[in-house]
């Protein structure tokens, strides 16, 4: 018998009762979606700023880089190439994959209020690996696309046809592997900033 048949018949020989399917779980209620999102994202060491419209993104990014004394260079995936970049004249755009010290932009299709998470179902114009290659990730999310729970994002992603990768990102990369003490920037970004568009 093949390993597969062997294993399945071993399971069947030992299984007697079938348990009922558990009812759908209702996570604790969230009163204010945006407040919860911001609070949780900050708790996970993300910086959160509000802007009024997409048009303000380039200037806000230039300010974020300046505030951190970083060079005015940002890597932009095709999904963000249509933003009005000429509104921030000092900013240089990179179009290649970011290196471990580079800043990169990510447009998050969804946010999750429960955990302050950004969710990215993979798309052709937004490489999934950029979330882990960059040193500083600047995520952009519209307030109206912040959903309550991970289950809500899963439902949307499934109904649109589940891509091969869905990334859920909460705060920057971290490790506690040396003396159980938090260090940011293990392999992925050392910092994460989120621009929430109010409109």
């Amino acid at each position: 018998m093949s390993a597969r048949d062997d294993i399945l018949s071993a399971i069947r020989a030992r299984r007697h009762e079938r348990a009922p399917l558990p009812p759908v779980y209702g996570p604790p209620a969230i009163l204010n979606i945006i407040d919860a999102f911001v609070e949780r994202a900050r708790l996970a060491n993300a910086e959160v700023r509000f802007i009024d419209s997409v048009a303000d993104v380039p200037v806000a990014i230039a300010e974020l880089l300046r505030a951190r004394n970083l060079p005015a260079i940002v890597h932009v995936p095709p999904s963000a190439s249509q933003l009005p970049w000429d509104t921030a004249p000092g900013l240089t755009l990179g179009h290649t994959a970011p290196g471990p010290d580079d800043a990169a932009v990510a447009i998050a299709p969804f946010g999750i209020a429960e955990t302050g998470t950004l969710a990215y179902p993979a798309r052709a114009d937004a490489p999934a690996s950029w979330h882990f290659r960059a040193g500083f990730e600047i995520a952009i999310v519209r307030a109206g696309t912040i959903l309550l729970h991970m289950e809500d994002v899963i439902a949307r992603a499934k109904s649109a046809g589940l891509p091969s990768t869905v990334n859920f990102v909460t705060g920057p990369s971290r490790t506690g592997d040396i003396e159980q003490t938090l260090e940011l920037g293990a392999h992925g970004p050392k910092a994460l900033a989120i621009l929430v568009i109010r409109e």
Partner: protein
Amino acid sequence: MNQDPRAFREAGQAALHDPGLRIALSRLKTHFALNRALAVERYGDWEALREQGCAIRDYALANLDTLLEQFERAVTARGGQVHWARDAKEAREIVLGVLRQHGAKTVTKGKSMVSEEIGLNPFLEANGVVPVETDLGEYIVQLRHEPPSHIIAPAFHLNKEDVATTFREAHTTLDPDRLLVERTELVAEARRMLRAEFEAADAGITGANFLAAEEGAVMLVTNEGNGDLTRLLPKTHIVLTGLEKVVTNLEHGAVLLRLLTRSATGQDISSYVTVMSGPRAADESDGPENFHVVLVDNGRTRLLGTEAEEVLRCIRCAACLNHCPIYASVGGHTYGATYTGPIGAALNPGLMGVGVAHHHPNASTFCGRCAEVCPVKIPLPKIMRYWRAREYASGLAPRTTVFGLSVWAFFARRPALYRLFVGGGARVLKLLARNGRVRAMPLMKNWFAVRDFPAPQGKTFSELWAARK
């Protein structure tokens, strides 16, 4: 370092006298246990969440065969391939076969306990494949040629000075006079060294936290982002996992995720959670071209239908280790096995055989903290008792234990004699005590070498009980 579960007692003695390990183990309470308690409190109705998690895992185990078949169909439909391994040897050979099929010589690895369980790394090395661990803790212990000492914190037994020494010895291409003292410097150095490995690897191997049967998807949790770089950059991605990780769908995975990260590190969610299904689609710009899942049995299905079955609910959060007085005393390496602490004590006799791992279920005070903190309510002490009974039945219990138990049983069956003996014993112990503590007894030198106990106060429980009635 102990690699033999049968040498648990000797290894434990050595661990108790290791000063560096004492410092490392003291971090269990101040870091893991504290952070978990705070996260549980923040959540709200934790008990309802545990109930749900437990029901989700029980449903999956009760329908394991159909869910695994459904998972296989869904992975195949998405262009991936599922492999089945009866035991460790089969699993190792499947992984090597897939690597050879795709011409892979270098492999980056995300954290996987199953990989440790089946001894994958030495096997790959012996067959001309270079495996590079990329989880920081796993990377550190790989450089030191040690196994991980904790399920979620592989280098838990080390202090930063040990890590600095290890990096200086391993990273010979770097300036020997560089500053390498603080944790930040150590993390930055590992980040730099490993980024090159990610870019160069032919294949990536990760574990899985949950397998979603309906979607044919793998849910993977990391904090560092190493699991994602391992999946996304190489041409081939292999997921190596125990077959019991399957659940009904991603929604069930999302519920278990709430339990997992809070129980493990006290985070509401880990930095990265990734749902991975199949190779990259034609219209996607990133991801592997080849996607394989290796489902490993290696003794798991044998536990179905036994009194130890609930151990298969485990989601590998390590909360039971972090709250265990035995683990906190002897550390992970003492077990000489991949799974340590209470979950190791409940799982290892099943996976490795009672004859090999019979000391592990005895390494418990039965304080019950492990079962209290278990997010999926595994009755760990009950399962340890089951293995102890099996040990006794197979004649593996030490002769002194068997003799002691039979003496006790003789008296316990004769209440009058028992009361007489215990009453007399309590009074003798009171005479042996100095300053209210019993510190020595004839024939028990080893036992008293590391402990004592309070002297009996006078009357026995039976006497007090009789007096109250």
